[in-house]
């Protein structure tokens, strides 16, 4: 009887040793957005791209913008949250346009739809076509909208997943400009 109790206690302790660390991991990770993982690009050179604007086909390359901070926003006309943040980005582009270059990379979309969207909601910066999605893959874009903040030296300073608010955008632009200051 004693040995049986000892055995049962052993099983209980063993079980707790297995279950408690698992419960700890669950408790720690529960509620975290799996997409809000820190991008491995932060702190590294931003993947280069040379894309064309959706309307005139004018080439725009990231390398040519070296020396000026860049805000790259991946979006699409079929993405509802992108509609919500479009106004925030357009207003910020008007306000900070001299200091920061805003670029929109349109993900999986067509020029006619982009034209209709920008006509309705306004346009403040170049919208580039990423045919085949190679740029989106190089930036590790999982679900749009996603916004990358690239320093004047071409390094990715931060990444924001989801529709960005005006406050968040201002804070991140301030961070970009501080990084740029000597």
């Amino acid at each position, binding site marked *: *009887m004693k*040995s*049986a109790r000892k*055995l049962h206690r*052993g*099983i209980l302790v*063993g079980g707790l040793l*297995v279950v408690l660390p698992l419960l700890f991991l669950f408790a720690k990770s529960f509620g975290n957005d*799996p*997409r809000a*993982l*820190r*991008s*491995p*690009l932060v702190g590294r050179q931003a*993947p*280069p*791209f040379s894309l064309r604007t959706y309307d005139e086909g004018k080439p725009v390359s990231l390398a040519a913008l070296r020396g000026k901070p860049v805000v790259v926003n991946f979006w699409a006309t079929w993405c509802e949250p992108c509609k919500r943040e479009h106004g925030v980005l357009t207003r910020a582009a008007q306000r900070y346009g001299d200091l920061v270059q805003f670029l929109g990379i349109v993900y*999986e979309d067509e020029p006619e739809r982009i034209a209709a969207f920008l006509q309705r909601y306004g346009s403040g910066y170049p919208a580039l076509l990423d*045919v*085949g*999605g*190679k740029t*989106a*893959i*190089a*930036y*590790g*874009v*999982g*679900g749009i909208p996603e916004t990358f903040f690239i320093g004047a030296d071409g390094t990715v300073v931060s990444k924001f997943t989801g529709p960005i608010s005006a406050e968040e955008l201002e804070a991140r632009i301030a961070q970009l400009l501080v990084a740029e200051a000597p």
Partner: protein
Amino acid sequence: MKRGTLHHFRRRRILRLILGVLSILVLVLGLAARADEAAGACAEGEACAGQPIDRDFVVRLVGPPQGTPLEGEALAAKTHEVSLLLRCPTCQGSSVADSPSSTALNMRREVEDLLALGFTEDQVLAYFEAAYGQFVLLRPKAEGLNLLVWIGPGILLLLGAGILVVYLRRGEEEPEAEEVAAPPTTAPADDDDLEPWVLRVRELAYGWPGGVPPEEERS
């Protein structure tokens, strides 16, 4: 004799339980393997549009191509194989090979382009990991906390087997005092209709023929 029969029944029940769990495990693994085989890679006839890959950028990340450039059937087969190892970031738990989404399609084309340039499977996976992080790898790397995923099940299996062996051995060697102290009841069932069933259960549980204890049989 009685105790022996009881342990015999318990051991058989535990063995049956283990066999049941193992059969379910084999069935599930078999079905998963078949699902993997059935999943198609980059389907034929799909337009592989888009700009050419920035080879220099890839080389900066994963080094120059270390394999031979693939083409034809070998390229299609390898593209499928590598796509099975990548998670589709816009889908719920499916691989790039399994998902029909446009993101997965773009990623399959990227894998194909990289393999056609002579990059190896490891280099392709490293390229995607550099962009998406380890999240994109469906087979986690065996390092750091991830080691738990690889060796954890083995350790748990050994632990479970150890506990089972100790439990069964102790059961054989040391009779449980409770069983000796508390003799099994021989009271008749309340309901006459149930009596034969009660006797049958007692026969199965205690090993008395006809459910009648040996003492009662003798008297």
